[in-house]
């Protein structure tokens, strides 16, 4: 270790599905520049093998390790211990909100993934389309043949849904990430189907502008901006269809 080790206490909410949650504390010696996920992993390895949590890539690409650290939604693989406590301090870790708890820190994100799927979310897009429209295009250093593609920003971690107050009470609300995905797909390939998905009571109109999604998103998706931009798009489309009534939709191929 390069740093003086810190003594911290880690309090984790434990729960088996359907049973009452309780909080268990673990005393740990950590390097302050380690990540919260490292500490959780250490607890599993050396203190309690029954602790369950999700993790895979450990470099903010898979979106599996979302948890609440001191109440706030964090991607724990990139959240340093230094940023959430001090030497001798405590870290509180809870599962994400607004998802059913499967066990301890593992939540059931099945509905969320299915909804992402319904919006035809494609995690690869041309570099231009993957960028937020208000960002200036960056010059790519290496020249490639044809249009360069990359992974889009959303890593489907669900932090935004956990932070959203509207998702607190309405299980039908698709949530920020799905609406952001609809927006992203619409900018690449506008379709009436995506407009109708967005213009729905469990879509755009359940958002009540708390903007928590953008606050917690670890990946610069800016779901709140995308939701509001999609509203603008929907309004425009609806006005257009009044001025120039649309012919009945062809069936999707």
């Amino acid at each position, binding site marked *: 270790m390069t740093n003086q080790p810190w003594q911290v206490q880690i309090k984790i909410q434990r729960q088996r599905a359907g049973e009452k949650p309780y909080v268990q504390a673990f005393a740990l010696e950590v390097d302050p520049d380690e990540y919260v996920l490292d500490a959780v992993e250490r607890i599993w390895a050396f203190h309690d093998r029954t602790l369950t949590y999700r993790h895979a890539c450990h470099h903010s690409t898979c979106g599996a390790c979302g948890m609440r650290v001191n109440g*706030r939604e964090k991607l724990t693989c990139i959240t340093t211990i230094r940023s959430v406590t001090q030497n001798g301090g405590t870290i509180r870790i809870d599962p994400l909100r*607004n998802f059913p708890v499967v066990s301890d820190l593992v939540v059931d994100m099945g509905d969320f993934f299915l909804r992402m799927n319904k919006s035809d979310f494609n995690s690869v897009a041309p570099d231009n389309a993957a960028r937020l429209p208000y960002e200036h295009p960056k010059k790519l250093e290496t020249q490639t043949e044809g249009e360069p593609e990359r992974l889009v920003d959303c890593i489907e971690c669900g932090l935004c849904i956990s932070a959203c107050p509207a998702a607190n009470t*309405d299980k039908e609300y698709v949530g920020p990430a799905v609406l952001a995905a609809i927006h992203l797909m619409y900018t690449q390939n506008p379709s009436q189907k995506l407009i109708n998905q967005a213009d729905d009571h469990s879509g755009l109109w359940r958002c009540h502008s708390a903007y*928590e999604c953008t606050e917690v998103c670890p990946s610069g998706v800016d779901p709140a901006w995308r939701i509001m931009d999609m509203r603008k798009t929907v309004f425009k489309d609806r006005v257009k269809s009044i001025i120039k009534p649309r012919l009945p939709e062809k069936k999707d191929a």
Partner: protein
Amino acid sequence: MPNQPDSNNWPRWFDPRSRSLGTFGYILNRVTALGLTLYLMMHLVALGQLARGADAYDGFIALVKNPLFKLGELLVIAAGVIHGLNGIRIALNSFGIGVRRQKSTFITLMLIAVFIIVFFAFKMFSEG
């Protein structure tokens, strides 16, 4: 309260813990909305006194002049001003305008709201 979305979780709408500035706007808007709707109903009923003629209405106004009612009236004005100004922000945002400046817009509008509310408070309580 269940961890998953559940209508029983509604008290969490009003819980600002582990949330950021945007949620304060959301909570303020919701609380003032409910308060103003309640007031609207009460107001309509109370104004029924007008139909019952001068004596009934003036008697009612005399009652409303006591400080407790005045405080209530100030609350209504405050709620209206906050909801109205915050509403301007939300309306603009809904057309994709100023979303990335929503925080500074919120702070500015709420400072204006405080200014207006203090103005009314002085006016109402100094008139006696």
